[in-house]
């Protein structure tokens, strides 16, 4: 086919598809709702939900992963433009990570040294590490599918941001169930769970987000 023919064919279809942000808005909402519903009906809310979250330290269990997810989604959307960059989002992510690190240090400070191991171990570690990736599945999938329509020049990083977003959403959803209120527990294991999803997202992105 000559280039002239090609141009003629392409020009017959001038209207662009919906933007990545619009596609994401359509899929991410239902995915988050589905994750929340499966937590509510499958895992169940913790019985002392309102009382527990009156403590600001415990409230951070929901707030920090939500902020992380927000920054990751914004970054992923920016990176979905071929000329886009993630400088601002990386700064926001670093800020959340630093806050988490501060909370972790605080956890060590307020816990007697001989209890560090037990506090970190908690009593629901396995459930936590299984639940976060499970609950992250749909939100991460929605992000990856929307980003597939984007034009990221770094597919692995975009995939990682999708995983970070999905993992952050899952962690803050799981926090409505999770009875562990020790920062040493939830910073460590929520962080690990989110990291697992981030790595999986990066691997998926490297495969699926190339164009």
């Amino acid at each position, binding site marked *: 086919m000559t280039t002239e023919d090609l141009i003629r064919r392409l020009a017959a279809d001038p209207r*662009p598809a919906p933007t990545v942000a619009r596609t994401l808005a359509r899929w991410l909402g239902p995915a988050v709702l589905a994750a929340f519903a499966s937590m509510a009906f499958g895992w169940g809310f913790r019985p002392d939900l309102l009382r527990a979250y009156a403590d600001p330290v415990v409230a951070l269990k929901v707030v920090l992963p939500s902020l992380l997810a927000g920054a990751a989604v914004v970054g992923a959307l920016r990176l979905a433009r071929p000329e886009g960059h993630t400088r601002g989002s990386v700064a926001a992510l670093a800020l959340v990570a630093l806050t988490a690190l501060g909370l972790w240090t605080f956890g060590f400070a307020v816990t007697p040294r001989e209890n560090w191991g037990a506090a970190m171990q908690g009593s629901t570690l396995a459930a936590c590490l299984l639940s976060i990736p499970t609950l992250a599945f749909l939100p991460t999938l929605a992000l990856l599918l929307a980003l597939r329509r984007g034009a990221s020049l770094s597919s692995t990083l975009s995939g990682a941001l999708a995983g970070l977003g999905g993992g952050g959403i899952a962690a803050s959803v799981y926090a409505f169930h999770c009875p562990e209120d020790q920062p040493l527990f939830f910073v460590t294991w929520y962080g690990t769970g989110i990291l697992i999803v981030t790595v999986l997202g990066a691997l998926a992105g490297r495969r699926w987000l190339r164009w």
Partner: protein
Amino acid sequence: MPDGEADWTALFRAANGGDRVAYARFLQEITPVLRGIIRVRGRSVPAHQHEDILQEALLAIHAKRHTWDPARPLRPWLYAIVRHKVTDAFRARGARVELDLADFIEILAAEPGPDPTAAGDARRLMDQLEPRAAEIVRAIGLDGETPGAAAERLQMTEGAIRVALHRAMKRLSLLAHGTLR
């Protein structure tokens, strides 16, 4: 060319609104520019493939046209796509990349070293080279023919002559030092 940019942006914006004529004109206007970019960046790919790469770039622009944010300048977006697709296309053709040796002449020619032809037994050493390489070394190294003239006589490009000469000299140098047999 700021005028060109304004034109492209106006055309592409109209195209986004559904204007086929504007879209066709936009694609026609960017095509020669893309062709130029591919020619300059794509010297390592044979010229007859440049048009294929151009078409791949146009298809990518078409497929990703919804990722342009109308509030932002068009050109960085456009060039980011083109650079990506062109680089990709070159990489995909990596198995049969045909290097333009002219690019490397400066680097190759600059390498210093002892002159192996100075050795008394240069001609004996040269018998161990391939006939073609030996002829090039004899013509330029011993008989003082210019690379240009040798290239013309042997029906090779000057770049290829220089590279062959460089390789032959290196081999001769190794032979002279007895490190290669």
